[in-house]
């Protein structure tokens, strides 16, 4: 009797647990089927390419015949036998090093302007953002016209302001990169709006309290605005770094526009005067899709990947010291 009760209860428990297990299985199955598209994409367009990039970078591979293992040869040739490589590295570092901090500062200032109480602020916001929806090819072409050294709008204005020998912009090896940087500042509306959203998150009461304590506008900026914006600064900084290391379209178009049309020897990746606008991605593109040197291009890609990764990790690991999360979380 006792045993049979035990048996049935055990059976019931087993039945219940198997039902529960079935339900959990079903729940997992349902969950995974919802995220399945992304999981497949992760495999095909993220994981496989990431691993394959490393592999290809250690081979000679022209797409037509199977890859041949060459070890570190691509990397060695890249840094020793390719003078243009270092040119592209220094161009890109120049561009990133100036456009990222400058862009950060200018978009923060613009955001603070847009955070003022003034009539028509919505219209100003629209105007500041407008350039960033202009297709990059079109936007760059406009700037090529504006920055025409002889009779462009910009140099005409500069001359009327007393600059006797205004820059040659995209036609000068010295001024082509500053020209690209100026162009990037024009289109930085997106990070401006991210900053603006950050500013709107700062509670008004903090400013009121600081005013009562006698802090002036400058003090309020350093004590409240800047610290509370640090998470946004970190976000925009990382996005800015990733984005500007990949600079391609504007440099390609400005380089082509400067050479006055016609596909010259360099074609799409001409690089402007004295290769002064030959960016890392342009050289990579040249190796991959003009010479079909996929191994070499992969070596460049992997190197850039590690540089960006190192910078991101560096920023994140030091962020504890300068990013204030807790204050921003409290609202």
């Amino acid at each position, binding site marked *: 009797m006792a045993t049979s009760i035990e048996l049935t209860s055990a059976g019931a428990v087993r039945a219940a647990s198997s039902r529960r297990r079935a339900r959990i299985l079903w729940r997992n199955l349902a969950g995974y089927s919802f995220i399945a598209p992304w999981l497949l994409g992760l495999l095909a367009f993220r994981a496989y390419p990431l691993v394959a990039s490393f592999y290809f970078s250690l081979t000679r591979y022209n797409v037509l015949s199977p890859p041949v293992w060459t070890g570190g040869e691509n990397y060695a040739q890249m840094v020793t036998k390719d003078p243009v490589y270092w040119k592209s590295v220094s161009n890109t570092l120049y561009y990133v090093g100036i456009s990222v901090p400058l862009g950060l500062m200018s978009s923060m200032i613009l955001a603070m302007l*847009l955070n003022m109480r003034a009539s028509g602020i919505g219209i100003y916001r629209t105007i500041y953002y407008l350039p960033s929806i*202009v297709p990059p090819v079109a936007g760059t072409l406009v700037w090529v016209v504006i920055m025409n050294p002889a*009779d462009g709008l910009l140099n005409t204005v500069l001359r009327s302001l007393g600059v006797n020998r205004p820059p040659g912009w995209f036609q000068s090896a010295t001024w082509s990169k500053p020209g690209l940087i100026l162009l990037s500042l024009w289109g930085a509306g997106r990070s401006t709006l*991210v900053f603006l959203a950050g500013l709107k998150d700062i509670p008004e009461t903090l400013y009121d309290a600081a005013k009562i304590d006698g802090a002036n506008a400058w003090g309020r900026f350093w004590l409240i605005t800047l610290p509370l914006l640090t998470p946004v600064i970190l976000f925009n900084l990382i996005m800015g770094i990733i984005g500007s290391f990949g600079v391609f*379209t504007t440099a390609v178009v400005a380089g082509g526009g400067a050479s006055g*049309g016609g596909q010259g020897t360099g074609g799409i990746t001409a690089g402007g005067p004295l290769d002064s606008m030959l960016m890392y991605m342009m050289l990579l*593109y040249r190796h991959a899709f003009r010479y079909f040197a996929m191994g070499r291009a992969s070596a460049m890609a992997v190197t850039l990947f590690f540089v960006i990764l190192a910078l991101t990790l560096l920023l994140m690991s030091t962020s504890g010291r300068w990013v204030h999360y807790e204050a921003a979380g409290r609202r």
Partner: protein
Amino acid sequence: MSVRTGSRVSWLSERGTRAFRGRLGTILRQLVLGTVAVSYLIPIVWLVITSLKPLNQVFTRPLKWIPEPIMWRNYLAAMTHEGFDFVRLLGNSVFYATLATLGALISCTLVAYGFARMEFWGRDVWFVVLLATMMLPGVVTLIPTYILFRLLDMVGGYAPLIVPSWFGSAFYIFMLRQFMLTLPWELTESAKVDGASELTIFWRIILPLLTPALMVVVVFYWLSCWNDFMGPLIYIADFEDYPLSVGLYSFMTKYDIEWNLLMAAALVVTLPMAIIFFLAQRQFIEGITLTGIKG
């Protein structure tokens, strides 16, 4: 009596200076905002002006602000220019942007629902992976992806540009998930008790509430496809299959540059985006607030 008048006078003058300072502040603010706005607008204004000039008035000394005569016909000339078959290029761009956006919309919404509203084994781990892929620079996946599509014999057409969109995009999945998390759980609980399936709940209850967030995805994804230059440059083989972005570039490289026509072409390529922007301005601004800040 005299004391009373005195206090009244000082009160009045204080109010006067404050009003004066307030007005000065307003003027100063408008001045700063306006100056910056003008400097941001000038390139666009210059684009319009240059596009309406005869060729010999593009670069002049002194500058010519008003074209003489106004060459409306530049637009027709640009849009029928050899190698810039506008209607065809427009069709290609619309085809690309529409199919890619549609794919991203469907896949991202489903995946985001899974992450936001369902419980399953390993969900949080996968979510961290998703966040990590947002930081993955495109450069490191570029070449193997090309080789993959080459093996699949898809290089030359739009498939390599469209297909990946149908497998979700980390950024928009993240954004939609954050949005879905803000929807109250009570909404779906009673439906669950009634035995509705996840798909029914997704379709009937959640999806209708997502409209503002979905608009953000549509607008931004469309914009990124429309402006995409490197992708089509790599994958699209034939001249007549180019989207507008690459078409505009090849317009520039083919002959001696006719800057007025090129500006007309550039304006025509910009215009659809500008129209979408003005129609969906709120979505743009909200979208950035939604995606940017918590990233």
